[in-house]
């Protein structure tokens, strides 16, 4: 392993290329892990995408020298358990806590030969769209460090975009994989609810949470998902589906007579950046040239998805986060009585955004309000799900923007959190319906910021989504562009 060009090639190499290099003996797994760990040391002071990068020796102790991801390093969002590693959810309340086991997603990746070299920064408890609420500090977008990387899986998206690792795990409750993927110009997949086990994922909104994958191209993404998808006895909401190789149909062609529907009320929603509309229209032409039929459809209830999402996610968060009470693990404030200990521990341990969401959740669930808020939100959720199902009777896949604008400036929404949260509405509808969705790069703004679009399918249509997204990447080069300054 030597030479500046070789090193350059390594930084942004695809998983497939890395596999070849490893197989040919051009590089060893130990060298590769060391190489990426060194890149974090070099670049992450500025980006702040990792909460911890492990030392090489400890990474290699769990190395399983076989499988499709043999020797390929990646990073794991810090709300996914890794055995005997810290697990903070970027929150002070989990100060000093370490996990006693591996999440199923992590153990399956390890069994497939992959190496986890660290814990990725995130919004506290995955609550946010900018990675600004982390107790470990703000993470920065590698395309423009005055801007946010998106969130909540911002650290994972940055690490992949800046060539610090070829894959990263994130989690997506209302868009937390797809939106940072769009902001950082990488591929982000949120699978069908239940496809990837949530065992070892710290719960936020349990009926919406799903572990997802970041990579720089669609093929790599399919490789990683193939290694971790499938039924797990330890998660009762995991679907009874067998392991599958999602790379099988990735030959650059589209499914015969593929029908793609564009969600018009999303594409032309108020406040949409025209540059994003244009980028998506151009992308549609690429698929059209490849033989797809494009139609325009409207999903009226989609416009209300943010309202339903706010209520359901906060309600579930309030219940899930009740467990942080200073008794069994994590932070404890010493007080004279039990009640005071609970209240002070939770006051000091949770950040402002988390506290607000718990409060909103307990409000919408409380006697006198649950009828108006929670119950109605569940009806709206059902309506959204139904509209998607109806649409998928006419088309195979749907397209809509990932976000109405490219990455915003750090602090842009400090005075108006609601405005930031409302921008989730293209992504959170997908979680409400439980369907899979991918965000892939489809252009750049005049400020040289990446633009992403979502491709959605019915439940368990990951194979078709990957095939269609991969065919697009065979015809375009947006995904091959990298931010400047991370080459050496």
């Amino acid at each position, binding site marked *: 392993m030597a030479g500046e060009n070789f090193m350059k090639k390594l930084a942004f190499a695809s998983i497939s290329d890395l596999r070849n290099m490893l197989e040919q003996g051009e590089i060893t797994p130990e060298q590769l892990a060391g190489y990426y760990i060194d890149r974090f040391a070099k670049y992450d002071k500025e980006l702040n995408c990792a909460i911890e990068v492990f030392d090489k020796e400890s990474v290699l102790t769990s190395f399983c020298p076989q499988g499709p991801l043999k020797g390929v390093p990646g990073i794991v969002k810090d709300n996914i358990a890794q055995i005997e590693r810290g697990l903070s959810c970027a929150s002070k309340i989990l100060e000093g*806590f370490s996990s006693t086991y591996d999440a199923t997603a992590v153990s399956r990746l390890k069994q497939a030969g992959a190496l986890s070299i660290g814990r990725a920064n995130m919004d506290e408890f995955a609550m946010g769209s900018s990675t600004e609420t982390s107790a470990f500090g703000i993470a920065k977008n590698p395309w423009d460090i005055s801007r946010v990387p998106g969130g909540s899986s911002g650290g994972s998206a940055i690490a992949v975009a800046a060539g610090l690792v070829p894959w990263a795990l994130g989690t997506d409750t209302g868009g937390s994989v797809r939106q940072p993927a769009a902001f950082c110009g990488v591929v982000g997949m949120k699978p069908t609810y239940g496809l990837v086990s949530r065992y070892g994922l710290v719960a936020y909104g349990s009926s919406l949470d799903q572990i997802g994958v970041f990579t720089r191209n669609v093929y790599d993404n399919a490789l990683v998902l193939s290694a971790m998808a499938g039924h797990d006895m330890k998660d009762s909401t995991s679907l009874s589906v067998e392991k599958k190789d999602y790379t099988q149909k990735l030959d650059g062609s589209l499914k015969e007579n593929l029908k793609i529907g564009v969600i018009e009320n999303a594409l032309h929603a108020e406040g949409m950046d025209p540059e994003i509309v244009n980028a998506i229209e151009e992308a549609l032409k690429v698929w059209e040239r490849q033989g797809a039929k494009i139609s325009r459809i409207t999903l009226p*209830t989609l416009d209300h998805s943010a309202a339903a999402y706010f209520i359901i996610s*906060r309600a579930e968060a309030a219940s899930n986060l009740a467990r942080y009470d200073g*008794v069994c693990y*994590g932070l404890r404030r010493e007080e004279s009585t039990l009640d005071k200990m609970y209240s002070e521990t939770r006051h000091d341990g949770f950040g402002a955004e988390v506290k607000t969401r718990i409060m909103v959740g307990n409000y919408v669930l409380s006697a006198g309000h649950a009828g108006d808020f929670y119950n109605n939100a569940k009806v709206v959720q059902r309506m959204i799900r139904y509209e998607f199902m109806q649409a998928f009777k006419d088309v195979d896949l749907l397209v809509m923007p990932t976000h109405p604008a490219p990455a915003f400036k750090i602090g842009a929404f400090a005075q108006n959190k609601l405005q930031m949260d409302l921008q989730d509405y293209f992504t959170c509808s997908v979680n409400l319906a439980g369907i899979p969705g991918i965000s892939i790069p489809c252009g750049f703004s005049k400020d040289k910021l990446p633009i992403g679009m979502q491709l959605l399918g019915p439940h368990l249509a990951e194979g078709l989504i990957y095939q269609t997204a991969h065919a697009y990447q065979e015809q375009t080069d947006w995904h091959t562009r990298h931010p400047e300054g991370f080459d050496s």
Partner: protein
Amino acid sequence: MVKITKEEVLKIARMSYIDIHEDEIEPMVKQLQDVLSYAQRVKEVAHDVAVPSNRRMNVFREDVVIKTNPEPIRSRAPQREGNYFVVPAIIEK
């Protein structure tokens, strides 16, 4: 129209077991007011069309005892005595 008051915020904070300091009340009133005013539209939107409800099912598995060592889990406790978690007095003296 949702109208969040200071008293309501204090009540929910108590319910949530989150202490709230004097200077934190006003911003919290505003945050809750903003989110809930927006979210209340679900009441107008929700109408029971003939939407099939989600398929619900119970997931069963064999009740097999798997031996695990609880010690690593106990060792995460802020305060313990043997197999017990220690907490402050429940009733104030």
